[in-house]
């Protein structure tokens, strides 16, 4: 059985995910996406993973969702307007979604996952730091390189050739 916190979190997460995709205004959609990401952070807290939950809040809600909001509001104004969708494509998408939910859901309910439960205590988050610095240290270095290259790539992509630079002295 699930408790009431879990029920409230799942209604918040799935409901705001549907709202994020279906509401007309893209700005309200970004705010609904923010709620979805916060709901996932709540699930992480329920799963006794406070470090991942705080990481999710600071990276997803704090930076990604705010970045999307900034892009929608300031940079690309033309993205706010919705393109007309094909009705048949939309119904086919809804049918695909329901088939996926029922299909994978039936498989999972029929599998042995139903009986899985644990009484052991949660993993200490100090163990995550140990993992990062011992077994996963090459992956950590690769991730740092990916982040650095994404920053450099973003600066290259955002540069505009048609704007005259006032700051240039030569």
């Amino acid at each position: 059985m699930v408790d009431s916190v879990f029920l409230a979190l799942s209604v918040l997460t799935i409901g705001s995910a549907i709202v994020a995709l279906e509401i007309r205004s893209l700005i309200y959609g970004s705010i609904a996406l923010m709620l979805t990401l916060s709901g996932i952070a709540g699930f992480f807290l329920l799963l006794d993973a406070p470090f991942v939950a705080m990481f999710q809040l600071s990276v997803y809600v704090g930076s990604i969702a705010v970045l999307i909001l900034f892009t929608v509001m300031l940079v690309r104004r033309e993205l706010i307007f919705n393109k007309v969708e094909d009705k048949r494509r939309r119904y086919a998408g809804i049918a695909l979604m329901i088939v996926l939910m029922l299909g994978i859901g039936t498989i999972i309910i029929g599998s042995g996952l139903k009986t899985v439960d644990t009484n052991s205590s949660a993993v200490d988050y100090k163990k995550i730091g140990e993992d990062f610095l011992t077994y996963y240290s090459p992956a950590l270095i690769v991730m740092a390189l990916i982040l650095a290259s994404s920053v450099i790539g973003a600066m290259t992509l955002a540069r505009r050739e048609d704007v005259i630079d006032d700051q240039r002295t030569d």
Partner: protein
Amino acid sequence: MTNGLIDFVLVSVALLAIGIYGIAVKRNAIRMLFGIEMIINSANLNLVAFSRYIPNSQGQTLALFSIAIAAAEVVSFLLQ
């Protein structure tokens, strides 16, 4: 724990299906990005849920990696 593993996995499946619907139907690039974010988050939820019920810390470590890579992906998607 009162919540079983299967409850978290079912929420994750629902989020995955909604994300696939968003990618398949929406014609707007930002809306498709919303769908991609939902799929990535359902994968993260699966990782953390299984790492709680094993119990093992590696699922949480991989979820942290996945969140960081998703941040880089969104930045390059939005600025292109």
